[in-house]
């Protein structure tokens, strides 16, 4: 049981890192950004390319994340920005196209076979008499640290406050004379960086394969829906909650573990619909 809880926390931490950018983009710009999955997958493959040269996990992570920033800027600037304010399905189709294109690019450059990345530290800790890998504990700590850092960013900086305000009333922000799109770009890049970090630190736990972006972007979508669209704290609880759902279902029926996330998402949507209706 303890093992499952720790596994759930690890998955939850990764889900949070990968989903937060998706949730912010959805909440502020009303854009369902499937290209988020491209960033996630590409960053892992870039990392695999860089790691043998630098022989240092953290340094390779930093370099890969830096390399992914221009790509995320290009996606925001030339694919997403022209679609701000348009119907939600335009961006959905456009970003889905990006996800397809990058998946094919990955297959073309790196092939279709899954690739393994070794864990940077094999040290284990004894938690409640269970051996728990230090690396997974680091992942959980990183996610919690990111949560607090983002909270500070949103509460204490003007850029953060503009985003919080835009989550409430994007028209109101524009009517004050603030060019919110500048801030959206910044937040888009922050979200992409976090997706890249999430993807890279998760890659030693799972294997890297070209379709990993598809799988994770759907999970990020579920986290965003369950957490409440645009609710950044909600996304944190939702990510860890759904991480637990995956871990607990995996104990009983591993094949259904990820499907349960979408069952929970559907249930949450139904409950919300009932509430709204009543």
């Amino acid at each position, binding site marked *: 049981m303890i093992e499952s809880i720790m596994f759930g926390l690890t998955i939850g931490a990764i889900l949070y890192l990968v989903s937060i950018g998706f949730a912010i983009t959805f909440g502020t710009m009303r854009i369902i950004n499937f290209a988020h999955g491209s960033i996630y997958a590409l960053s892992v493959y870039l990392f695999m390319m860089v790691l043998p040269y630098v022989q240092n996990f953290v340094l390779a992570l930093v370099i890969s994340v830096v390399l992914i920033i221009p790509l995320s800027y290009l996606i925001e600037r030339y694919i997403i920005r022209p679609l701000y304010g348009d119907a939600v399905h335009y961006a959905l189709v456009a970003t889905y196209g990006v996800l397809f294109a990058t998946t094919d690019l990955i297959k073309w450059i790196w092939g279709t076979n899954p690739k393994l990345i070794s864990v940077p530290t094999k040290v284990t800790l004894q938690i409640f008499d269970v051996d728990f890998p230090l690396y997974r504990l680091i992942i959980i700590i990183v996610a919690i640290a990111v949560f607090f850092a983002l909270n500070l960013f949103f509460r204490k900086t*003007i850029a953060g*406050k*503009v985003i*919080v*305000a835009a*989550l*409430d*009333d994007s*028209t*109101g*922000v*524009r*009517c*004050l*004379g*603030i*060019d*919110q799109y500048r801030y959206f770009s910044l937040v888009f890049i922050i979200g992409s960086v976090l997706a890249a970090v999430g993807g890279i630190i998760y890659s030693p736990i799972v294997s890297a394969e070209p379709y990993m972006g598809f799988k994770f972007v759907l999970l990020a979508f579920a986290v965003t829906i369950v957490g409440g669209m645009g609710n950044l704290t909600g996304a944190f609880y939702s990510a860890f909650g759904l991480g637990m759902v995956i871990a607990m279902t995996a104990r009983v029926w591993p094949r259904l573990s990820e499907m349960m996330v979408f069952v929970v998402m559907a249930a949450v949507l139904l409950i919300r619909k009932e509430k709204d209706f009543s």
Partner: protein
Amino acid sequence: MLSVDSVDVFYGHAQALHNISLELKQGEFAFMVGRNGAGKTTLLKTICSLLSCKNGSITFENKDIQKLRTELLAQQGIRYIAQDKKVFSGLTVKENLQLASFAAKVSLTETIDMALEIYPEFKDLLNQKAGMLSGGQKEILLIVRALIGKPKLLLIDEPTEGLASIVIKDVFRLLKMMKGEVSAIIVEQNLKLVSQLADRVYTLREGHMVKEISNTKECAIMEELEAYL
């Protein structure tokens, strides 16, 4: 100051405004009255570029402003206050003012002083989440926010809608205080308020401008306006 000339606006294929023209001089308060669906909000949103017009022209201080984005117009002094009384509810009252002061490049201290001068009750509410304010306080916060940085033209959509009569008095007091300092086009159904503050009244019906009253004395005759509601 503002000139709207023969403007047509469409929602898809449906025409919402037909050949609308209006004029506003500096310091004037123009009110727009009309039934629901008459096109009053559409016109305000078109002036501030939240909607675009198919035909016609909109000029502000002799410059064509049709192609300018809403945020750029706000920087040039045209501020729109929506009907829904939506403040930035996740931020405190002070932070709401802070964003306005940041946008207008005015110091926060100056902004807060101004806000407290206009509405002293904000003193105890500065650190409260704006979402917790009453409807009237939200409307006042929206107007105060829009006033920061000395705008030239306010477009205010139904400022007293849904407010208790005691709160309407506060909004009325604020609008009266603003009169002469800033120009405004205000959509309003409260004819008592219109009759006391209007320099001009435009009446709309089904997207058409049906009457313009530009005589202050005539504006004060409520019975005349009632016919258009």
